[in-house]
């Protein structure tokens, strides 16, 4: 009884440790269970789905990849991955180029209206993109970009102010003496940007590529509004369209969801450390 009424510090510490681990395991189950069940479902046959409705039962065969084939083929996932890759390539490299140029100009030059330009970028962070789409739509439409892959590309490039800040922090940490010695050697501003600043920005570029890449890959709102055509589906919108043709075929829908999640998982496992850093930088700056 003494241990109950007056637990020794050792006992108390042990209980605290156990509770800590229990909470961690509990949270992991909450995170992983919905995903694992979807993975299990994606491996079940149509017949097995019809027979028992238990979501936690094991599939008859773990090598049944038929649903993946169906999802990939009938869900036009190849087109979707192609369109996503196209948009990713242009949007991300555009963001890197534009962000680094803006940061270079703002930090390394003094010009009239410099303060105003900075304020314009700053205030823009306060305007949430979802609120202005009604009006943005009219502008995109008037450029004839509606229902083309250029609409999301332009929007992703034009509304990413966070990356400008990330670049700004890095440009500031590059010593100005580097610019100056290059200038004495006869380099002009463009050469300095291209040969000195841009290569030194590599860590910032990695951050922006990761954060922007994941955002673009996962975005639903913009492609959904601006690219309604069937052949212009990106992975989000193509997966969304599974609702219609596959109706209650959860095994196919699950396979589609796993197909979409898998690349994210691989990238995450490969680049974990950079991804954490990237998101901390991206969100707090």
């Amino acid at each position, binding site marked *: 009884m003494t241990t109950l009424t007056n637990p020794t510090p050792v006992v108390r510490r042990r209980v605290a440790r156990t509770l800590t681990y229990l909470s961690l395991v509990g949270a992991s189950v909450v995170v992983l269970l919905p995903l694992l069940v979807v993975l299990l479902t994606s491996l079940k046959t149509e017949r097995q789905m019809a027979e028992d409705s238990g979501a936690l039962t094991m599939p008859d065969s773990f090598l049944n990849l038929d649903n993946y084939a169906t999802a990939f083929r009938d869900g036009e996932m190849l087109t979707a991955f192609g369109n996503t890759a196209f948009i990713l390539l242009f949007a991300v490299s555009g963001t890197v180029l534009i962000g680094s140029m803006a940061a270079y100009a703002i930090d390394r030059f003094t010009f009239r209206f410099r303060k105003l330009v900075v304020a314009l970028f700053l205030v823009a962070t306060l305007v949430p993109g979802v609120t202005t789409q009604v009006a943005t739509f009219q502008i995109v439409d008037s450029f004839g970009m509606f229902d083309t892959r250029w609409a999301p590309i332009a929007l992703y490039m034009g509304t990413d102010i966070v990356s400008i800040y990330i670049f700004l922090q890095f440009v500031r940490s590059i010593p100005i003496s580097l610019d100056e010695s290059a200038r004495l050697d006869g380099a002009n501003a463009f050469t300095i940007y291209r040969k000195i600043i841009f290569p030194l920005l590599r860590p910032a570029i990695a951050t922006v590529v990761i954060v922007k890449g994941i955002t673009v890959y996962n975005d639903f709102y913009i492609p959904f509004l601006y690219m309604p055509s069937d052949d212009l589906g990106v992975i989000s919108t193509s997966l969304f369209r599974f609702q219609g043709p596959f109706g209650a075929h959860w095994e196919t829908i699950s396979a589609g969801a796993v197909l979409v999640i898998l690349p994210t998982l691989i990238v995450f496992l490969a680049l974990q450390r950079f991804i*954490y850093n990237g998101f901390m930088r991206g*969100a707090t700056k």
Partner: protein
Amino acid sequence: MPHTRTTDPSHAVKKVARPSTAAPRPPAPRRAPRKVRLWRKLTPWLFLAAPLVLLITFTYAPVANMLAYSFTDWDGVSPELSYIGADNYIEIFTRPELFQVFFVSGYYLAASAIQIGVALYFATILSFNIRFRNLFKGILFFPYLINGVAIGFVFLYFFQDGGTLDSVLALFGHESDRAWLGTSTSANISLASVSVWRYTGLNFVLFLGAIQSIPGELYEAAELDGANRWHQFRYIIAPGIRPVLSLSVILSISGSLSVFEIPYIMTGGATGTETFVIQTVKLAFQFNKTGLASAAAVVLLLIILAVTWLQRRLVPDDRVDLV
């Protein structure tokens, strides 16, 4: 060179405005010819042209247009539109079914409070020495990276009749045949929990980063003074991460007001789960009420700006020092 100052005032400004960390540029050996000077003046604008054009086209022009549309009855297509004053705004605040979407945000706001608490707890315990630390970190953060549509489907199946949740409850001997997405209250609670599942990882990683930037000696010193974990949290961690905490609060408020993806994918806004953005999208793109939708968007924007302003006033931080 006094004459340089009088003829070229921008040069004087230049020196003042440079950040103090920068060394002063060596004075130009001789005044450059006019053409070169013009070129030099133009250079920063060449770098800024693309970013500024994009910024104005896709951020400021829409905001300005939206303000203008919000006072019209425009349908978004026809060339005709007439100014109707504040009628749209009056409609939003007087038609209860239009205003009701704000109450749905309440569920997400409550969910954010839980989310921040959970994230704070796990960030604290995982910043101390724990076995499998990186594994737990990865598991907790990963949902944030998953595609929203995929999450929508995963949880549609989760809440499905006989789906994941029902099966788990059956394991514990609790036979339930409730439709989790069937009534307005349970549907909103279910959807809000999905958003907790999805976004806790982001808060967690932000808190973790902030906690790790607190110097380790502080804990050691506190431990020597006999402080326990709770004291360490209360007097070292909590004050240390205040800026990030307040940033999270503001992000959750504006996030709660602009929920779109998950409810749109999972319920399409049915059974009382329609949020402000779903409503705006429907008004604008299904019912062609661009004027009314713009007014709604202006209201949302103003609320978010007000919240941000309030947060800046209440918790001033140094994040704004950007240049």
